[in-house]
């Protein structure tokens, strides 16, 4: 529970301290706060009266008396900026407030309720979006006698349709979450659900949109006052000051700088602050902080060729893989070693977090960008896969090593017919004419026992079932006649009757082609059905490897035994199953010595003392346990 406790403390930090702690947040927040205070307290903070003219000192550069110089009438630029900022910032606040008041309630309600209300609101929003805002603004300014307040409120409402759409989209997504259904079952009213569950999830969207809108509205407001549509001179406005400085730009270019730079900085700061606040509020309730670290550069493994004429098909030795996370490097795999030869089927078994999928992905060199191999070798017929160049890798992956995954649908492009996609793959493996390629495609589809190959080839991926899609994926994998098929949970997403069909198909294909299969699974039934050898993984290590019969009949590791016993099938009906307490420890929370000892019923003191090596039990049977004698006596 220590990791959870740590995370718990981290989460209870407020948003503000977290904001101050991030450098971007501290700088932009500090700047905006300073600007706000200085403008609000302009009567105190400004060094001079913004309207006081001093025609003896016009267009001065900064001096000790006038920090930012004077304008063409000798007025103090700093004072005018501060006084001008008041109306600008008030205008922005009015605009943002108007937008929030209109867009958030409508957006959330439309997204949550859907139906006719949603349609009406969205058509209205479309209408508003199509109206040119600047024309309306000019009309409003002439009606309301140059009132910036009226203009900004109008602008806020008109610009609200963008935020409305974003908020509605978020609300629609949240509405489908199961916890909203659960809240409805618990009898919460719609209002309660909207305020407690929908609105908080829209917070990030609202924050970012508001800050963007604030930045835009500063630009718009400055533009309006620039063309003289705001408060009439001599009242100070930022846009008015830019306008004045433009008139004297040839005599005194400096005058453009203070107002220009301030406007630019304010706009920039608002944009950045919005982003930071969004990230910080999201961090308070996610475990990782939601940020993916940049990839670690892979440490070069010196390429060595193994001697010997016909080395084993696939050989992993002491493979270690780390992932970079915001919390630091996490070692996902440690000292993973196993061999796989032609005609064999190796089951890589383990629970989530054991590293079985990472192992499969490392062999194919398709690790996520933040993962890196830190030690060990992966050899395919003696060739070092980890140091293979991109070209060599592509050639190997396509033809000699193939992959089928848990989600066959994602491997197929929904916009092309299945036949066309397979033809592409087939032609990549050999220079075939279009007609020969089509014939080969039909052969492949027939090989995977699809009932009507001609018809399937004409269909689009979304027109076939998951089981058919997995058959198509297997057909694609077979196109290059691979020596090794890596199957990452190939039947997990399928119905049990379809799973049995797919396993039967794989078994037949293996018998016919003699290829080796590395199958990643968590299902002991699949292991019993399909595998010749098993490597059981736990917390990033292989804890036991053996021929399949040994694993089921004479397992030499307590974890393997416990995991097999935990199937409901192996317990008496409606009595407690012998479950293993706790869960797989994540990297960083793994105990020293044996990683299973916290959950192991047979753990002794010496289990903690040192790293446990793989110990040979019988020919081909190895276990990472130092108490195997006691285990065998135990039965």
């Amino acid at each position: 529970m220590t990791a959870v406790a740590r995370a718990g403390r981290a989460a209870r930090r407020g948003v503000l301290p977290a904001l101050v702690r991030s450098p971007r947040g501290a700088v932009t927040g500090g700047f905006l706060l300073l600007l706000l205070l200085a403008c609000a307290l302009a009567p105190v903070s400004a060094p001079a009266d913004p309207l006081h003219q001093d025609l003896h000192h016009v267009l001065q550069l900064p001096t000790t008396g006038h920090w930012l110089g004077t304008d063409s009438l000798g007025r103090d630029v700093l004072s005018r900026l501060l006084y001008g900022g008041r109306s600008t910032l008030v205008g922005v606040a009015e605009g943002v407030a108007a937008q929030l008041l209109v867009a958030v309630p409508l957006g959330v309600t439309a997204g949550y309720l859907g139906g006719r209300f949603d349609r009406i609101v969205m058509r209205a929003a479309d209408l508003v979006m199509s109206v040119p805002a600047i024309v309306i603004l000019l009309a409003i300014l002439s009606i309301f006698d140059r009132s910036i307040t009226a203009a900004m409120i109008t602008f806020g409402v008109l610009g609200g349709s963008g935020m409305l759409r974003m908020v509605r989209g978020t609300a629609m997504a949240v509405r489908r979450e199961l916890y909203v259904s659960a809240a409805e079952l618990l009898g919460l009213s719609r209002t309660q659900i909207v305020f407690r569950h929908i609105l908080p999830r829209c917070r990030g969207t609202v924050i970012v949109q508001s800050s963007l809108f604030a930045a835009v509205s500063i630009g718009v407001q400055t533009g309006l006052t620039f063309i003289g549509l705001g408060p009439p001179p001599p009242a100070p406005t930022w846009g008015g000051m830019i306008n004045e400085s433009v008139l004297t730009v040839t005599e005194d270019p400096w005058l453009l700088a203070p107002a220009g730079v301030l406007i630019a900085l304010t706009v920039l700061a608002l944009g950045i602050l919005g982003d930071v606040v969004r990230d910080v509020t999201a961090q308070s309730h996610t475990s990782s902080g939601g940020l993916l670290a940049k990839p670690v550069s892979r440490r070069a493994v010196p390429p060595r060729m193994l001697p010997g004429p016909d080395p084993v098909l696939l050989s992993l030795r002491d493979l270690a893989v780390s992932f970079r996370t915001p919390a630091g490097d996490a070692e996902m795999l440690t000292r993973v070693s196993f061999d796989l030869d032609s005609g064999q089927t190796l089951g890589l078994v383990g629970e989530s977090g054991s590293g079985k999928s990472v192992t499969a992905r490392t062999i194919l060199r398709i690790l996520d960008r933040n993962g890196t191999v830190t030690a060990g070798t992966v050899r395919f017929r003696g060739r070092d896969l980890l140091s293979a160049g991109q070209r060599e890798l592509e050639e190997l992956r396509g033809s000699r090593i193939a992959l089928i995954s848990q989600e066959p649908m994602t491997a197929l492009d929904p916009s092309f017919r299945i036949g066309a996609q397979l033809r592409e793959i087939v032609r990549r493996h050999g220079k075939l004419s279009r007609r020969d390629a089509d014939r080969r495609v039909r052969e492949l589809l027939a090989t995977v026992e699809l009932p009507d190959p001609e018809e399937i080839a004409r269909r689009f991926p979304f027109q076939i079932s998951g089981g058919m899609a997995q058959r198509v994926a297997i057909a694609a994998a077979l196109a290059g006649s691979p020596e090794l098929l890596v199957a990452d949970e190939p039947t997990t997403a399928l119905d049990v009757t379809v799973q049995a069909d797919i396993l039967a198909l794989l078994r037949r294909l293996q018998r016919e082609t003699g290829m080796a299969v590395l199958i990643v699974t968590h299902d002991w039934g699949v292991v019993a059905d399909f595998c010749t050898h098993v490597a059981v993984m736990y917390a990033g290590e292989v804890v036991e490897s053996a021929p399949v019969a040994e694993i089921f009949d004479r397992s030499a590791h307590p974890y393997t035994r416990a995991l097999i016993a935990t199937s409901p099938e192996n317990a008496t009906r409606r009595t407690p199953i012998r479950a293993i307490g706790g869960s797989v420890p994540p990297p960083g929370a793994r105990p020293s010595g044996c990683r299973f000892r916290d959950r192991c019923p047979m753990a002794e003191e010496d289990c903690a003392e040192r790293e446990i090596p793989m110990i040979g039990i019988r020919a081909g049977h190895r276990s990472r346990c130092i108490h195997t004698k006691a285990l065998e006596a135990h039965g």
Partner: protein
Amino acid sequence: MNTTVPSATAELVIDDLHVDYAIGHRKRRRAVDGVSLRVPPGRAVGVVGESGSGKSTVAGAVLGLAPVSAGAVRYGTTDLRELGRRDRPQQIQAVFQDPYSSLDPTKTLGYTLAEPLRSHAAGTERGGRGRESRTAAVDAMLERVGLGPEAANRYPAQFSGGQRQRASIARALILRPELVICDEAVSALDLSVQAQILNLLLELQQDLGLSMLFITHDLSVVHHIAEEIVVLYRGRIMESGSAESVCRTPSHPYTQRLVMSAPARDIAVQRERRARREALTPPPARLSPLGDACPFAHRCPYAVDRCRTERPLLQPSPHGGRVACHRAHELPPWPHMYEETPAGPGGRQP
């Protein structure tokens, strides 16, 4: 728990339920086609089926999440079909499959659990009066599901999938419901965690006298936890009966195929199961349209012409349950595969 154990008093009755979903304009797809089942007070009933069998739609019809086109759905005397969300009886709660989207990520567990107590009258009745008694109720419930009171201050993202599922169970139970609908409640969990959650559900069901409708695709899970099982295929009931008889002596060819397809956790048993399955697999055929036919006729090794022209009705099966098969009484005897499963390492008690 410091209060008296509540026990379900009413029966959930689903009678001749039909659910149609609209697909596009004017086309409708029948997801549930004449399903009837009962969950008597304090009983655990399992619904098992593959994707497209309509099992989750049956749950949805009880929870008001699926449109009922015909048939009755009653809990005690309450008709569940036409209720607004405010009128839905709080005696019925649900635990969903996905432990990630079933908890609001922006709320602490404590908040999530206290919310229903705070929200309405039922909460006040059930010890929800005042902040302190609410906290006490939440802590007790967290303790009950094995999380401990310190979990109340944490967010869902700080928990593993199994812990979240415990939290979902705690939320479902906080209003002391009588009937809990578990829709694939353990399907997304790892094997060792699945066993823990099954143990917890079973213990809660037995201790609190809950009625339970347990929906899953996993025959071994439903065999373990349910007392009675209903097997669905393409929206229709194929077979129903006691868990024992449905799993050990399946009477319907479809149920038999389900049992044969689930790979055994034992090499010898699995080899035999596989051989038997392969012997009984007819050549692939096209899905026959629903209507006046057995929905399984296209995959059935025993199908005769009558199976393709006449819809089989549920009738008493040779092993004590009910089965929708014209040839149920002519099928070859079924070997007792579950019984033949030898004890694995640390396996079954004698």
